[in-house]
């Protein structure tokens, strides 16, 4: 004789048991995950890399203007996916660097912006060397920003570009702290992590990135390092190039011609 209480109990147990999908109990196996890591990543046919020729850059900032427009970064917010830094080294050994508004409007004054409203006048005859360095995401081979993401919202695409999933990002900001190059920021409108993605929508349609297209002097180039005929690959194979902050071990994939020790 089954009581009503027992019947209800058994019914609830059975219903719960039936509803639990087996996949929910899938336990992540570290060994399997480690085996998943392809040491054979080289099978990918595309690996986007970037090349900057600092000798050619004149600091016009048209790249920054184009990038902000193309990628819908609020124009007047003081954040940008790419920016241009100005370095001035004086004869007495001082190093000045600035990037007012990320050089969105170029450099239209001789005075260096020291921050906190302070400006520094430098006489022409005191300058030992001065140059411009465009910066953008290095799309590292070992991206530290991706390693720290607790939810899998930022990741490396098969072609090496590091992307941010705006729907999945919880806005914790770990990645912003982890990037040694300071390329990440919070998007003022979406309140999620934001970064340069080599204009992923353009390069996948066979176009150049907006900054490369905007540059009148050919200071910026994008290419596929897996293609031996690519102009960028040819330069990387035959000329002397450097990368930023190699000591961090992130294996950055933005290469520079004419990099100097003052550049950080």
């Amino acid at each position, binding site marked *: 004789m089954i009581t009503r209480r027992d019947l209800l109990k058994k019914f609830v147990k059975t219903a719960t048991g039936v509803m639990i999908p087996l996949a929910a109990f899938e336990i992540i196996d570290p060994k399997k995950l480690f085996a998943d890591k392809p040491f054979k990543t080289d099978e990918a046919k595309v690996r986007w890399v970037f090349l900057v020729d600092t000798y050619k850059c004149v600091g016009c900032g048209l790249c920054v203007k184009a990038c902000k427009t193309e990628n819908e970064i609020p124009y007047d917010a003081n954040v940008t996916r790419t920016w241009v830094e100005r370095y001035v080294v004086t004869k007495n050994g001082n190093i000045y660097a600035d990037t007012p508004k990320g050089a969105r409007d170029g450099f239209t004054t001789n005075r260096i912006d020291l921050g906190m409203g302070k400006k520094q006048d430098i006489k022409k005859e005191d300058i030992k060397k001065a140059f411009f360095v465009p910066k953008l995401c290095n799309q590292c081979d070992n991206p530290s920003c991706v390693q720290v993401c607790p939810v899998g919202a930022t990741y490396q695409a098969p072609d090496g570009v590091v992307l941010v*999933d705006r729907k999945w990002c919880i806005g914790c900001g770990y990645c912003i702290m982890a990037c040694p190059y300071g390329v990440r920021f919070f998007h003022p409108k979406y309140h999620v992590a934001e970064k340069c993605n080599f204009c992923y929508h353009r390069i996948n349609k066979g*176009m150049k990135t907006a900054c490369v297209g905007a540059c009148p002097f050919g200071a910026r180039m994008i290419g596929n390092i897996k293609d031996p005929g690519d102009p960028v690959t040819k330069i990387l194979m035959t000329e002397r190039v450097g990368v930023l902050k190699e000591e961090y071990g992130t294996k950055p994939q933005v290469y520079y011609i004419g990099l100097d020790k003052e550049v950080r």
Partner: protein
Amino acid sequence: MKSHVFRPLLVVIGLVVIVLIARFFYVPSDFGSHEKGYMYGWHRKGNEDEWKAFKVKYQFNNEYCKDCHSDKYETLARSPHAVINCENCHGPAMEHPSDPAKLKIDKSREQCLRCHYPLPYPTSGRANIRGVDPEKHNPGVECSMCHNPHKPNLRGMK
């Protein structure tokens, strides 16, 4: 089973089950470790296509402008400004002439000063570009009042 120890245990197990069920429905099926492995490739696969579908704004191809504006194209192509893309001053034109029908031209002095403010920087191409002091050279007037940006040499003066 009627123990004060087991009752809270059942509550905990129940909570775990609820979380697992919620996780099953919340996490999309394309979420997992993909080509780049667990350390760098743990993500929602569909997001790659979402970024690929992002709207393109700039052509950055002067050949696109050639068909309708051949006169401007030819003039510019023979000038030192030939290296500058039309859209750098005329604005993004991916869907022009349908959207927008008329492009907004940046004729500001600041646009010209990006390159033509004199900065005597050795080891940078900037030192080779001729510049003017904006505070002494006709301040307050648009450069294009006298200079033709498509034909910037002195013979092209208006």
